[in-house]
């Protein structure tokens, strides 16, 4: 017996039972049958047709011509539902394909944009970056260079998902191709600004922060292209302050110049960088307050930098009911106390 025949005989059985005792049990069987039929892609008009045929067979007299003919209308109406049902099946299939494609793309992106958090003597560095959807529109990158410094880039495309991710790949490529001697924060931003201005469409803006930590004299020099302000933790006074930085977003004006800032870092001090996905974490009550973020960092401050960023992320994720609205990136650089 093929599935259709099985379906028909099951339907007959259920219908017979129901007409005999009008039981909830039979109705429940009917519900189970529909699940089965949907799984097997049986369109609704088939069910209507089965119903009509069985009725005609069971009640050759009572189920008269008029009653039978009335089913022509029902059938016609159900055929249209059947069309919609088939389209739905196909769209489901397409959606599955797209999802798979996105997962592959996300992996490619991970490999492409991957960066290792450096291990430097005297420094403790932690970083986390989580996309809101499949693809990440945030980007961060560490570079160690020979004169004992660590550089860090953090960027955020206004927008999310695939377009943002494509854009980020370009930034990464442009940055990798900069010659060594052009890697001071201001030169990096000025170069990238030109690349973005030339290559990215007008509706796409990128914010970026670039900083270099000189381990020998513990000076952090940096520049910002409209990026979410970083924070600075003073270990001595146990207070936070904002890292001042001004600068236009990338891609707006071809000849933008960026200003260089410097900050001396004392033992135990921390530099905290983030994307706006952190500060714009939204709860039912609105954006999280800056104080809440600082409190979260403070609560974890005795931990390693990597554990701090992870714990802050976990708490904010929970606060948002596990639904990130924006890509989330948080980075902490700490000068070790004993250095």
């Amino acid at each position, binding site marked *: 017996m093929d599935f259709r025949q099985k379906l028909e005989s099951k339907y007959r059985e259920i219908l017979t039972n129901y007409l005999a005792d009008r039981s909830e049990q039979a109705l429940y069987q009917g519900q189970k049958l529909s699940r089965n039929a949907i799984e097997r892609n049986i369109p609704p008009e088939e069910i209507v*047709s089965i119903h009509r045929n069985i009725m005609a067979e069971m009640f050759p007299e009572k189920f008269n011509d008029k009653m039978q003919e009335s089913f022509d209308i029902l059938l016609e109406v159900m055929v*249209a539902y059947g*069309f*919609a049902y*088939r389209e739905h099946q*196909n*769209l489901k299939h397409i959606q599955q394909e797209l999802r798979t494609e996105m997962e592959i793309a996300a992996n490619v992106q991970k490999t492409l944009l991957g960066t290792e958090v450096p291990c430097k003597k005297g420094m403790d560095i932690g970083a986390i970056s989580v996309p809101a959807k499949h693809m990440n529109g945030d980007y961060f990158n560490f570079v160690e260079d020979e004169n004992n410094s660590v550089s860090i880039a953090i960027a955020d495309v206004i927008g999310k998902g695939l377009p943002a991710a494509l854009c980020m790949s370009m930034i990464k490529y442009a940055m990798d191709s900069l010659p060594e001697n052009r890697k001071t924060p201001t030169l990096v931003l000025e170069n990238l600004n030109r690349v973005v201005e030339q290559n990215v469409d007008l509706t796409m803006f990128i914010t970026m922060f670039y900083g270099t930590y000189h381990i020998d004299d513990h000076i952090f020099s940096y520049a910002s292209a409209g990026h979410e302000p970083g924070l600075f933790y003073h270990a001595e006074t146990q207070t936070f302050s904002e890292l001042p930085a001004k600068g236009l977003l990338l891609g707006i004006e071809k000849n933008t110049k960026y200003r260089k800032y410097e900050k001396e870092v004392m033992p135990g001090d921390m530099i905290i960088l983030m994307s706006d996905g952190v500060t714009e974490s939204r709860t039912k009550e609105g954006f999280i307050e800056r104080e809440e973020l600082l409190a979260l960092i403070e609560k974890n401050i005795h931990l390693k930098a990597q554990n701090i960023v992870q714990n802050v992320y976990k708490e904010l994720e929970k606060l948002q009911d596990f639904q990130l609205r924006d890509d989330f990136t948080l980075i902490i650089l700490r000068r070790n106390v004993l250095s």
Partner: protein
Amino acid sequence: MDNQSCVKIINEWDIVSARQLGRNVAKELGFGTVDQARITTAISELARNIFLYAGQGQICIEKLYENGKTGLRLLSIDSGPGIKDLRQVMEDGYSTSGGLGAGLPGVKRLMDDFQIDSSPGEGTDIRAIKWLR
């Protein structure tokens, strides 16, 4: 060809005549009521497209006997403006009725064979076959 009959589509009522013709032939060939209803729905879609987008044209129904198989061929022919991007039109969710599952992709899914030819300015020619099982 004497096993082919056609209906001119000029106004909305002609859609009904095309359906009637299709149903008669489908019945005659032995298609069950469900398939009859599906075939007439397909005819409606094509005839409506002629009426809406081409202004006029015709729907033809042909009986097919091939290698011991019996089938119904549905033709929709017009010399209207044609369709520029066939690939797009054949994509689910594109039609203005998006989500209703109707339109050309719906017709294609329903039939066993579906061919469409169209060039801008020259018109549209659709041929679809449904085999009797």
